[in-house]
């Protein structure tokens, strides 16, 4: 029977062969092999991608098509970043923004989660306020700045308020979307087990929606970080701490593309770091615990 040949994947019984196969993007590798390789590829690959982009950028700049002050090269930006670093501005800005970001995001989670859970569980509230919250989500953060300045003056409260208005609706919507995708069977089991409304929410709905919720949190973080930047850009100076958004805006005011690009790179870097350090491991653990990891490219 000529079709009966040894299947290509299985022919290679040794682990080394398995590894080379994995590099070939095969999605069938076993858990054990996968686990060992993670840390390398998770750090090296993004780094490699980053370096490739950097080289492309340098190459474009060295073609000399644009004035160097308009399109600075990586080296120029590095120089201006270094200067900011030495002046302490960069650290101060990162620290200020990160601090605000973490506080604001934490508060957003604490506020948004119960609201989201409530809305996802109580149809009347969901119907009444769901559209409003989706509407709030599409309202640009900058729209809040004038009002926030009037209400809170030029204080950190303004910045936080703008962040909340960006992050909370997004977290609420993420949680609701996660809850909507729960297989109804889980609720039925909860009901049979005699869960009260509250027990159902805490013991069934929240854990079942957790992967979707974490996805919502990621988007919520994106919203709150972006809102923070917007707030810092518009409401900067004086008694307000000097954050990354302020740095970006300052660079723009001074027509200094070096500072602008430095600020963008730092913002990008913070975003990537939060993704890699906070969300990726949480998501990974969640998915693995539920047996959802097999075949995923995560």
């Amino acid at each position, binding site marked *: 029977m000529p079709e009966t040949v040894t299947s290509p994947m299985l022919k290679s019984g040794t682990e080394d062969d398995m590894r080379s196969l994995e590099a070939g993007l095969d999605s069938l590798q076993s858990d054990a092999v996968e686990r060992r390789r993670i840390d390398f590829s998770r750090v090296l690959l993004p780094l490699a991608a980053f370096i490739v982009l950097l080289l492309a950028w340098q190459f474009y700049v060295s073609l000399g098509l644009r004035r160097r002050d308009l399109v600075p090269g990586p080296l120029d930006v590095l120089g201006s970043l270094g200067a900011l670093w030495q002046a302490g501005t960069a650290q101060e800005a990162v620290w200020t923004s990160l601090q605000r970001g973490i506080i604001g995001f934490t508060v957003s989670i604490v506020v948004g989660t119960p609201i989201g859970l409530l809305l996802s569980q109580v149809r009347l509230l969901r119907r009444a306020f769901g559209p409003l919250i989706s509407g709030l989500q599409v309202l640009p953060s900058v729209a809040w700045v004038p009002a926030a300045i009037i209400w809170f003056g030029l204080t950190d409260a303004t910045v936080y308020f703008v962040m909340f208005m960006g992050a909370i609706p997004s977290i609420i919507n993420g949680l609701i979307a996660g809850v909507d995708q729960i297989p109804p069977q889980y609720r039925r*089991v909860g009901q049979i*087990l005699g869960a009260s409304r509250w027990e159902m929410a805490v*013991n069934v709905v929240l854990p079942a929606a957790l992967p979707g919720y974490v996805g919502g949190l990621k988007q919520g973080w994106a919203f709150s970080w972006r809102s923070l930047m917007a707030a810092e850009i518009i409401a900067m100076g004086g008694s307000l701490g000097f954050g990354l958004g302020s740095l970006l805006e300052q660079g723009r005011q001074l027509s200094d593309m070096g500072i602008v690009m430095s600020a963008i790179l730092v913002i990008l870097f913070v975003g990537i770091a939060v993704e890699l350090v906070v969300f990726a491991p949480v998501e990974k653990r969640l998915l693995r615990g539920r047996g959802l990891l097999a075949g995923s490219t995560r």
Partner: protein
Amino acid sequence: MTQLLSEHGGTGTVPSADAGTGAESAGRAPVVVLENLGKSFGSGAPVLEDINATIRQGEFVALLGASGCGKSTLLNIISGLDGPSSGALEVPADGAAFMFQDASLFPWLTARRNVELALKLRGVGRAERKARSVELLELVNLGHSMDKRPHELSGGMRQRVALARSLAQDRPLLLMDEPFAALDAITRDLLHNELERVWKETGRTIIFVTHNVREAVRLGQRVLLLSSRPGRVVAEWNVSEEHRTDAGAAGALTADITTRLRQEIRKHA
């Protein structure tokens, strides 16, 4: 067709659909009373129609029927998860324990935590919860895989966890939807014995669905046969003590039920 039963007040005055109920349970209070119950999904043909049955306290009732005839739907209605389209029913106010056809374990909890959750929602204290869940899982031969997640368990193991969980609920009424379908003959035999022991010890009322006629005769005191499209109770057998002790009598009853089941299915062939 809607008929409210409130005037009966659940006092057991509703006559059983079957006059020949075994003597031992005839005098007990009815736990589940179904009256002219009908169910259809959306605008489709009725799945259940005109179901009448009374199940008394402490009874062990087996529900037989062709695949897709509405057995799970009936259990859903009895458990309160679904409402009937017509007719009325009486069920215990505090609901029923329910072992679903698919194991329906929570994938984010280990086998043990799944069982513990049932205990927790019943209000059992933390320490007792732990001991009791281990005990129940050992009862279903899963002492060695307690800390595995559902996706790491085999189909039969998942079903056994679900069995342990339904026993953990400790409700007077227990509904079981093909509880042993994914188990090998031997494990099944062992669990039959365990289930019978639990039933006798606790005096629970059990309604269980099975496709195995012998299993129905082995465990049930009464066997109900549901027809297909629409589902109606078309036949009912009492399994007496004689059937349990005498293999020949049991075999005859099994053959009888199988013949009747075959007839029912023929009608739709």
